[in-house]
């Protein structure tokens, strides 16, 4: 007893330390179990496929990244607004896709929002549209071949930011112009600059009409019934600097009545600017309704059941819930600091990204609308400064309620340091239970803004892996080198493991040489490349594909073209020559080894039985 009294402090200290140690050990055990469970949830064994495709906008990389979910494995990059030598995309100035880029705004872009085509309110797996904020463009990607199909420059618009398809059957793709433009000729417009929302036909990619909106038009979504196109609008003050943009305490959610806009165009109430009918809401009442929301809002998302549309506060800790039928605000609950975007599960819950709190907050929509105090269900920390977030099917009428992807703006300490510029990162969260559960994180090149998911079962049956032979395809046995003009040659070429036919092409200095090439392989994944040194040319041809490109005025010399996609044990030997004969002087480049029989040729020190030289099929046709 005396001992305990004397050493009371020491005993208490030992007890406290022991308790903490045991708690930590138990905690570590639980944490280890949670890690194993999370690892198992995202582990997809080699050879097995993911459950979902995730299409991530590539941001300033100008492309779309395709990632498997839940594994987070990068499956493909779809180049859109930037050339990609890896895919032979738009590399050469004469590549039609490069010319399309140059003609519409340049060979770089800033992709933000992937928007898949819908039928009956769910993704149909046909197209995916993506914006280029930097150059006011919209691109369409074909999902059967995962390739960029069309790119258009949208007139009267700068800063193509938020885009959304008009549900439920993709009547239009709406594109928000974020940066105001001078509106010369808009006599009724009192403001010097203004912006437009453009409505693009999904098949023809023609801009059908535009609706003028004052301020900066930000993020977009449509009502599920296709009646309204919603856009958040900030800077109603039309200020030109930071201070003047923040004067009003409310900005707006713009609701464009699509039928009313179509009627206004049909009645000739739109002014034609740069070939596009532009509707001034002041002369066409009923087209545009502005719903006041806290200043400088950001995301807008329609609930899957079609009842509400939710604007996220950004600078306000609230989300504004608006009844889609009445366009009246029904609730404005607080959710946390920096709410940017909202997505949904199939159990009536919304998930909002909190940029400043670096959290995802889960809240119950009905409870928030009813004014209940317990509408917040859960919060989970993300790393760090989350921007967009997307749950599987969250933008459709059939959310799945299983996974949510947090697209974070900063990664800070989450990966091995790689210099001052750290990777962008995504975090995958399990939302199938009451509590959210962090599963995994994976980095990507900079910098995805948004993502959409598509079920593997939807796309697998639609994806083509071998192109069909077309009328303009070059057929085996029909290869040729044809002089089509005094200074023009067309090479009709085929390629198959592992040879080009013809293997030797002879042209003259100053010729324009058109390569029309068909990869005549018929099995999947047997892509061949065609790289021509010193001419800025690399073309990638998947099996069955035909591509055509013209090079101008090749310089005299011998150029070995070669295959850039590994194809067989003879891949390194897959090459051929373009011999460009000089026209000045009396110099002629010899056709090296042409016609020689190398049988019996011996290299000193390397005894060998040489095979007789054979005439290669289609070898040495000349364009001379």
């Amino acid at each position, binding site marked *: 007893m005396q001992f305990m009294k004397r050493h009371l402090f020491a005993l208490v200290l030992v007890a406290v330390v022991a308790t903490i140690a045991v708690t930590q050990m138990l905690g570590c055990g639980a944490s280890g179990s949670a890690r194993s469970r999370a690892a198992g949830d995202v582990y997809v064994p080699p*050879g097995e496929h993911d459950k979902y495709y995730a299409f991530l906008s590539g941001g300033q990389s100008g492309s779309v990244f395709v990632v498997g979910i839940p594994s987070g494995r990068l499956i493909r990059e779809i180049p859109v607004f930037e050339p990609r030598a890896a895919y032979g995309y738009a590399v050469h100035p004469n590549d039609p896709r490069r010319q399309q880029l140059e003609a519409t705004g340049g060979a770089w872009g800033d992709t933000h929002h992937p928007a898949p085509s819908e039928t009956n309110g769910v993704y149909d797996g046909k197209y995916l549209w993506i914006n280029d904020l930097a150059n006011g463009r919209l691109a369409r990607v074909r999902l059967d071949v995962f390739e960029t199909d069309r790119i258009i420059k949208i007139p009267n618009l700068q800063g193509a930011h938020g885009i959304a398809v008009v549900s439920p059957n993709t009547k239009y793709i709406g594109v928000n112009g974020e940066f105001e433009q001078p509106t010369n000729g808009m006599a009724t417009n009192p403001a010097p600059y203004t912006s437009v929302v453009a409505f693009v036909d999904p098949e023809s990619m023609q801009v059908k009409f535009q609706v003028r909106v004052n301020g900066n038009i930000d993020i977009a979504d449509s009502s599920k019934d296709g009646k309204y196109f919603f856009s958040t609008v900030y800077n109603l003050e039309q200020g030109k600097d930071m201070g003047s943009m923040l004067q009003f305490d409310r900005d707006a959610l713009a609701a464009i009545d699509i039928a009313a806009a179509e009627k206004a165009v049909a009645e000739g109430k739109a002014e034609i600017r740069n070939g596009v009918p532009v509707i001034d809401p002041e002369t066409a009442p009923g087209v545009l309704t502005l719903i006041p929301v806290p200043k400088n809002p950001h995301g807008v998302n329609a609930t899957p059941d079609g009842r509400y549309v939710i604007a996220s506060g950004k600078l306000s800790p609230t989300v504004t819930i608006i009844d889609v039928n009445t366009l009246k605000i029904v609730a404005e609950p607080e959710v946390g600091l920096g709410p940017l975007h909202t997505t949904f599960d199939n159990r009536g819950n919304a998930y909002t990204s909190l940029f400043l709190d670096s959290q995802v907050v889960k809240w119950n929509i009905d409870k928030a609308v009813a004014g209940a105090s317990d509408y917040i269900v859960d919060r989970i920390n993300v790393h760090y400064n989350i921007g967009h977030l997307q749950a599987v099917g969250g933008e459709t009428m059939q959310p799945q309620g299983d996974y949510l992807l947090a697209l974070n703006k900063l990664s800070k300490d989450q990966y091995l340091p790689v210099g001052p510029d750290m990777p962008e990162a995504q975090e995958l969260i399990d939302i199938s239970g009451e509590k959210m559960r962090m599963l995994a994180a994976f980095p990507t090149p900079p910098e995805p803004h948004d993502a959409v998911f598509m079920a593997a079962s939807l796309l697998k049956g639609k994806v083509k892996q071998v192109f069909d032979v077309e009328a303009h395809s070059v057929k085996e046995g029909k290869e040729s080198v044809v002089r089509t003009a005094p200074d023009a040659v067309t090479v009709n070429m085929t390629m198959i*493991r592992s040879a080009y036919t013809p293997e030797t092409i002879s042209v003259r200095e100053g010729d324009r040489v058109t390569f029309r090439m068909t990869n*005549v*392989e*018929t*099995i999947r994944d047997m892509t061949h490349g065609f790289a021509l040194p010193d001419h800025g040319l690399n073309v990638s041809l998947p099996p069955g594909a035909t591509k055509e490109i013209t090079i101008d005025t090749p310089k005299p010399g011998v150029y070995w073209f070669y295959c850039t996609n590994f194809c067989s044990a*003879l891949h390194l030997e897959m090459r051929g020559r373009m011999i460009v004969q000089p026209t000045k002087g009396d110099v002629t480049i010899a056709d090296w080894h042409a016609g020689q029989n190398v049988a019996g040729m011996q290299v000193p020190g390397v005894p060998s039985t040489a*095979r007789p030289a054979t005439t290669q099929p289609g070898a040495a046709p000349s364009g001379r």
Partner: protein
Amino acid sequence: MAADRKLFLAAAALVVVAAWLPYWGFLMSAPQYPGESLMLNVSHRGISGDVQEVTTLQKFIGVRFPEHLPELRWIPPAMLGLAAMLAMAAFAGAGAVGRFFRWATVALFVALLLASAATVQQRLHAVGHDRDRHAPMSGLKDFTPRLIGPTKVGNFTVWSFPHVGGLALVVAIALAAWGAGRKARS
């Protein structure tokens, strides 16, 4: 109609149908062709199926694709003749001559099939031995694919098997032999 007569007529009909079906098949699988084996079908029109892919691959090991197969052209007339004999056998008398004719028809049928099998085997031997010695890939020994069953050739496993036409002919032989046996017992 007597059962044995029906058996001979059924055999004759099967032979006629079989003459226009693929006789032999080859299924080729390799690690880099997951879930998508290459298939070759041998019929009286020649070899069909994944011909382009197989001819592309075989160049690497110096195999010459058997393009000239004159024996295939003779199969339909031979089969029609055999079918005619089977039909005649159906109506041959119950006497010694008729019995002899029926068994002779069955024997000819068997002989024809064995000869065909021998021809296929000889062709397969040629495929694996009559190779270009200067083929790009070295180190692959000569081979003879089995007439029926798997053979490992490089990274491929080649399964050889009688196709529907071949199987129909085997069934037709069984029917004819059954018919001849029934007649003998009666």
